[in-house]
């Protein structure tokens, strides 16, 4: 009897934990971003649901990356961005992980992959050595993205796909509640893109973070996203992927005729829309 009771208690606390970990719905209200005279985003209203995958699509210069920067609080904006559903859940700022599109850096810099991960985890300068626990944590994060064999490699010598995975490992270091991916598979070869998609799928299933994905690639969007946000300076349309991604809305947003096609790369992991 006691046993059963404790089990049900465990089940409730598990449920509660799942609920707790999934408390970061992003609510965007009347968001406007201006840089000088130019308006990059105007009156954006949108909801990014917790634990789901939301794709942001739109033509070049639509303000997709700007929206991510605003969510991360890196640029000034007008309007509101809230990270919770009810006030009871509003505890602190969520951990936001970010994987940028393509980083431009000095590839001659003498820095290893492991160095790069450890830099953000310890205050003690790396020239006085790396703390054991920081090194272990970094290695675990690299293992998680199938990049542990790259630890001693120079950061500048990585391929596009490898670098993308290292950046993912970095963004996972602080256990993010929200993960933002900016064009995750552009500039990455087929195999690398597939591996990346698989990793994200697995991680998302395991951690249930709120996933936001900016992509040009409509096939990636159809196979991964639960929710789609079409952006062109303001929200053109928003809704479940199946409802939104019709020929009409796509040609409205992109201003041209685009056919939809099934995505081969990651279609194995296609999740049923709830």
């Amino acid at each position: 009897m006691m046993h059963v009771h404790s089990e049900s208690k465990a089940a409730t606390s598990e449920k509660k934990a799942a609920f707790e970990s999934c408390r970061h719905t992003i609510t965007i209200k009347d968001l406007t971003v201006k840089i000088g005279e130019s308006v990059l985003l105007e009156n954006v209203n949108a909801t990014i649901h917790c634990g789901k995958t939301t794709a942001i699509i739109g033509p070049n210069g639509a303000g997709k990356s700007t929206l991510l920067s605003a969510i991360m609080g890196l640029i000034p904006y007008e309007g509101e961005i809230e990270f919770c559903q009810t006030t009871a859940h509003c505890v602190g700022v969520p951990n936001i992980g970010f994987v940028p599109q393509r980083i431009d850096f000095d590839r001659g810099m003498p820095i290893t992959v492991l160095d790069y991960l450890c830099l953000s985890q310890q205050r003690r300068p790396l020239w006085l050595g790396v703390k054991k626990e920081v090194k272990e944590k970094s290695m675990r994060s690299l293992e998680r993205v199938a990049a542990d064999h790259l630890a001693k490699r120079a950061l500048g010598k990585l391929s596009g796909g490898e670098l993308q995975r290292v950046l993912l490992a970095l963004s996972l270091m602080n256990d993010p509640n929200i993960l933002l991916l900016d064009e995750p598979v552009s500039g990455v070869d087929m195999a690398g893109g597939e591996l990346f998609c698989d990793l994200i799928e697995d991680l998302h299933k395991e951690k249930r973070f709120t996933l936001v994905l900016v992509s040009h690639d409509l096939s990636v969007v159809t196979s991964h996203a639960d929710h789609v946000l079409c952006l062109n300076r303001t929200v053109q349309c928003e809704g479940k992927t199946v409802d939104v991604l019709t020929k009409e809305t796509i040609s409205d947003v992109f201003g041209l005729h685009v056919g939809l096609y099934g995505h081969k790369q990651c279609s194995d992991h296609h999740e049923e829309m709830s």
Partner: protein
Amino acid sequence: MAELINTICSGIGFFLPFEWASHDFMRRALLAIILIGPAAAAMGIHMINFRMSFFSDAISHSAFTGIALGILMSFNPLLTMVAFGLLVGLIIVRIRKRSKLSIDTIIGVAFSTSVALGIVIISARRGLTRNLHSFIYGDVLAVGEVEIVLMFFLSVAVFAFTFYMYNRLVMMAVNEEVAKTRGVNTSLYEYIFSILLTLVVCLSIRVVGILLVTALIIVPAAVGRTLSKNVGELFWFSVLTALVASISGLILSYYWDSATGATVVLVCAAFFFMAQFVKGLRKA
């Protein structure tokens, strides 16, 4: 303070019973160069990482204008040099944040504007040039107590900065956007870095002169970059190169009777070419 420096200098004489170390000016020069050389190299690491090698050139040339202004207004030239250098440095960082021009374009404009201003002042007041001589070529053998004290505090500040902020600065150098998402206040660090770099440039001018300041900052860091495989080694190779080159350059200049600053830079350059050679061997 003066007593403390004298005590340290006689200590140097006691522990280094060599002919060159028997002169008071050599002991002071040694003290000055040990304080400023490694600090300059520590800043150089980040200056190369940020791809702003040109920055120190702009500051050192604006220092020339600052000195001219000081002499013109009969103010202490050291003071006007630092003030004018800081002004130019902050203007560069400010414009860089606001405009889309690349950093070398902005630096180029700031650089030529300040040099032009300096030349206008000097040409209008003939007779100023003589005073400028020691600033252009540097004169570590004439470094005074006040400067040694300033160098000491600056060196402490630079190493405290590199201790607390090294990791963050490297993260910023790899990618600023990623660093920001990891909670690095990039703007703040950029300003602190520029201010410290300006001070290092101004005090280094007394050692190596306006013409060679950039070399003192960059060349040891370039050696570090060539030899190291990770960011920990980068620091040690750069700072140790600077330390060894500073001391051996000073001693060589004594026996060759050559300009000290230039000799130090020449030794740094020799290390640089040796490093290239070593790297070539490693690859082969």
